[in-house]
């Protein structure tokens, strides 16, 4: 089971890299969303996947599952969600302001000389 999720997160991160290497702003943003999905899946896998065990330590229970990765992922998901929302709004604003969604044309800093 761990092997499958690790391969899946590898596929997600690979496709994220592919998307982020394109020129369009929206494709790049989708790439970052995919990247965060892959990373979160990796984080979940790292705490070991177990089914049917309770997440608390008790005297009768010898085999318990780890509640921490879920808690960490929740935090990380919220953060990724906020960032994606912000960057989408920024993409809209810069499309209106700059009239382009091509990152090749977004060369910001003026060069002296």
């Amino acid at each position, binding site marked *: 089971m761990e092997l499958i999720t690790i391969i899946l997160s590898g596929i997600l991160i690979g496709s994220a890299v592919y998307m982020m290497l394109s020129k369009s702003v929206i494709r790049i943003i989708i790439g970052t969303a995919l990247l965060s999905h892959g*990373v979160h899946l990796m984080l979940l896998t*790292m705490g070991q996947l177990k089914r049917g065990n309770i997440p608390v330590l008790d005297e009768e229970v010898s085999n318990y599952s780890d509640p921490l*990765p879920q808690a960490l992922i929740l935090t990380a998901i919220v953060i990724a969600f906020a960032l994606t929302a*912000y960057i989408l709004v920024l993409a809209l*604003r810069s499309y209106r302001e700059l009239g382009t969604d091509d*990152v090749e044309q977004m060369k*910001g800093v003026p060069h*002296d000389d």
Partner: protein
Amino acid sequence: MTTNILPLLPIMIPFFAGIIMLFIGRRPLAHRVIATISSLLIIISAVWLVVLVYQNGTIATFLGNWAPPFGISVVIDMAAALLLLTTAIITLFTVIYSFQSIGIEREKFYYYVMVMFMISGVNGAFSTGDIFNMFVFFEVFLLASYVLITLGGTKIQLQEGFKYILVNMISSNFFVLGLAYLYSVTGSLNMADIHAKLEGFEGNYSIMTLVAVVFLFVFATKAGVFPLYFWLPGSYYAPPMPALVLFGALLTKVGIYAIARTYSLFFIDNVEFTHQMLLLLALATIIMGSIGALSYADMKRIIIYNILIAVGIILVGVSMMDEAGMLGAFYYLIHDMIIKAALFMLVGFLIYRTGETNAERLGGLIKIHPVTGWMFFIATLSLAGVPPFPGFYGKLFIVQSTFTNDNYIAGIIVLVSSLVVLYSVVRIFISAFWGEDMDFSRLKPVKSDKLIFASFAMVIVSIAFGLAADALYPLFEMAAQSFYDPASYSNYLPEVE
């Protein structure tokens, strides 16, 4: 083992100040008052913390009263306390500086709110004792910095802000990935606990070298270390000057602090590889920063590349990881935060006054602004580390440490970089303040008393720090100890049966 509120104050005061400002709406004057008062309160609480830590040693607070390795802890050792104090001082003067320079439109659109949230995140990253919380606080201040870099929505801000956000989002994702590896290896997130576990471990933890590389990738991106500094000169060029003061003085330093913390606590298994890699990257950063600082005439760019040089010098000290190296790195870190803020403020004043960023188009300003000119000169000397200014002590210890560790090349590069720094900034001084008089009718009639007050205050803080360096030595020794002797950091953990 109680929840002591004091260590949380530097995080909570700016956070609540930001929330109050959000609720009172678009009232710039009220925002200014609240921002100033809350910065003063942070200074008071930070001084209090420094005194308490000096008297009693490391202060730790356990949120929700969970026993230490579990739950979230806020740990303030002397290093964190000094960084909090420096951050607070810089915040106060940057807020005062912003009154006349940021523009009323940005003030209406919650500029001070974002400054306060950013300070909250920076203070949190300095004082947390939990590696996942460090990630969360990184995101808090990064999110505020995304807003600060794009606030105002000019073309250059949108273009460079987009790249800045993208780079930081990717590196933050890798931070989570590194955390995942670290958690699966050690099964803990408390930094002191991870250190205790790794130190007592007999076997081979070679996977920690991989984690070290992932963490270095992340923090090097945030701090602007050699191959990953590519975004920094462009993105830092975009925001208005007060935001740049905060970015240049604080954000890269949080990355350095994180590198120092993780490299002293976690990556003790394969020091020959990890710390040697850090040293090489730091030296490359110094060289690239020097090339950049020498090759432009644009004042903003020169000082932005000076950030890179400072990052490199501090990391040379960190990578030595002995007493002198850490002491030097810490002196230089605090010194650089103060003097970068001062220098950015002074250059910002020149830019606001003249409307020019190119130093070669200025000249003869010493006739109109004699005091500012000489303050700029003092700031230049201080930046380059001429004694008795504080940069000297930091460099002295770093170079001493490189020589005792037989890294003569590293020491020589650090020494030569001082000359480069001095030359690159004195060039601004010479061409802007001396030389042929520029057309003084082009000068803009800006209201500048608060700009001048804030920048002079920062220079004076720097001079005072230099003169008091001897008296402050015990504090810095304590601060450096938790890095070169990490066991002293983790002794707040109770003995686990």
